[in-house]
């Protein structure tokens, strides 16, 4: 299979997946709606779906210490790429999955990538999932990313998902849905920075169905210029479970942030908490860093970087 990575492709891959050249082990790199290169490993099998565009990733039970890369890059304008990636993670696995989408659009036409990711997490498996979204290019064409993430967690499984979108994405609507079985633990971390006239909407629906299941939703965002962000995380406790939702947003310029954290308890032993805070950077933080020799601009940058770190 021919591999032709342009400097733009390379910079996008480095930005979203930390990749420099081809990774080792199992990976699938998709460019402009088509497969660029794929590799399976002894324990991880990647195959093209037969019903929808996309791939099935099957991870054998007991697979430990492997990292799977499935980045997507879009460099063609006017393209709407919809892809379904389904992970079947066997029992007792411990794996890391690095996904993400980078769009480079220099044109006036929109580029869109909608990734529908589903994770079936086997008993006692541990998954770390990192997804970075990024847009670049000088054109006026919109860079649109509408990901859907579905997580189905079996007994004793644990999953930490970090979903990051820093800069460049004109419009995004993220839908994250999770169902947790007995003793399953989910951590959802979302980090978002919007600028100019960008719009970001994040909907989450977490169902805690199993006894002793738990979820932590941590959302940190920075809204700059005239951008708009809407957060709508909902955690429902249907068993003796624990849920914590935390939305923190820093507001700059004329940006708007709406946070509607929701908790619903349908069991008397469900313990659910939510917190939400929106505000500008505190003046005392900037002053403190200035007394340490930073300019006010450097101080602001430092505060934002740490906040989204």
């Amino acid at each position, binding site marked *: 299979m021919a591999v032709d990575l342009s400097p733009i492709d390379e910079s996008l891959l480095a930005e979203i997946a930390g990749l420099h050249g081809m990774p080792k082990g199992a990976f699938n790199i998709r460019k402009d709606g088509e497969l660029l290169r794929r590799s399976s490993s002894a324990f991880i099998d990647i195959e093209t779906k037969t019903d929808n565009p996309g791939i099935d990733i099957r991870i054998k039970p007991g697979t430990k210490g492997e990292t799977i890369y499935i980045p997507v890059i879009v460099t063609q304008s006017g393209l709407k790429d919809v892809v379904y990636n389904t992970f079947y993670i066997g029992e007792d696995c411990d794996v890391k999955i690095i996904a993400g989408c980078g769009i480079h659009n220099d044109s006036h036409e929109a580029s869109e990538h909608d990734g529908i990711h589903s994770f079936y997490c086997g008993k006692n498996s541990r998954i770390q999932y990192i997804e970075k979204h990024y847009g670049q290019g000088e054109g006026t064409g919109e860079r649109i990313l509408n990901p859907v993430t579905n997580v189905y967690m079996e007994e004793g499984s644990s999953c930490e998902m970090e979903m990051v979108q820093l800069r460049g994405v004109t419009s995004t609507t993220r839908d994250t849905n999770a169902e947790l079985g007995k003793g399953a633990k989910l951590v959802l971390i979302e980090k978002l920075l919007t600028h100019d006239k960008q719009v970001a909407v994040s909907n989450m629906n977490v169902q805690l169905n199993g006894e002793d299941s738990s979820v932590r939703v941590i959302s*940190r965002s920075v809204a700059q210029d005239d951008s708009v962000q809407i957060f709508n995380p909902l955690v429902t406790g249907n068993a003796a479970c624990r849920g914590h939702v935390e939305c*923190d947003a820093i507001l700059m310029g004329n940006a708007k942030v709406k946070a509607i954290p929701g908790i619903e308890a349908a069991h008397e032993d469900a313990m659910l908490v939510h917190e939400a805070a929106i505000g500008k950077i*505190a003046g*005392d*933080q900037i*002053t*403190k*860093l*200035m*007394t*340490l*020799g*930073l*300019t*006010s601009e450097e101080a602001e940058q*430092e*505060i934002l970087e*740490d*906040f*989204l*770190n």
Partner: protein
Amino acid sequence: MLELRNIVFEVPTGKDGEIKRIIDDLSLTIEDDRFTVITGPNGGGKSTLAKLIMGIEQPTSGQILFNGQDITNMPITERAQLGIGYGFQQPARFKGMKVKKLLDIAAGRKLPMLACNEYLQKVGLCSASYLTREVDKSLSGGEVKRIEIATILARDPKLAIYDEPEAGIDLWSFDRLTETFRDIHEARDGRSIVIISHQERIIQLADEIVLLRNGKVAETGTPADLMPKLGFAAKGIGDCPFTQPTVLHLTEIPTTC
């Protein structure tokens, strides 16, 4: 050397354009290598004076000179770069920022772990695990306060101003902190320390005590000169009648009502 010349600081009170004078024509010189404690009653202008030196507040009139250079209108950042440091009475918290990072920023370079641990030890935080903690609400008030002081130690300014460093710190950590201040002072390497404090043990360390009252320097002198006047020795501050409470016995409390 820091020289404050005829400093006046006024704020509007909000009522009919009235103004309140917080610092009233204050002049003061702080020589190099000196340990100065500024003390005095609440509302006397101590914190305001510290903020004026750091540039967090601008004087209404008067002049501030640091090593001969007029810094009256200089922004905070430039004063910091000249070698003035300031430990806040109520330190800021930073979501997502690790203690290690804050110390690195303070020092202006990436510090080795060992050096960071030493700074933390000097303020009584004797666990390396603090370095990876975030300077957010997960830390107690006393912990944040000690980290604040550690940032000034890491910065190692020529002139360090600490605004009530003892506030919110437990007795054991306070002992450690007092030793740290004494060590810095005994090193006598050209650095000056100005501490705003009401603590007798810190005041005793001073070369010079400045008593600030109603925005003016009421008196200056050595601890030997001023301690008796400050009332610490006599324990007669304000002659509060409740300092010696009446001893009551249960039998003396009427039980008929």
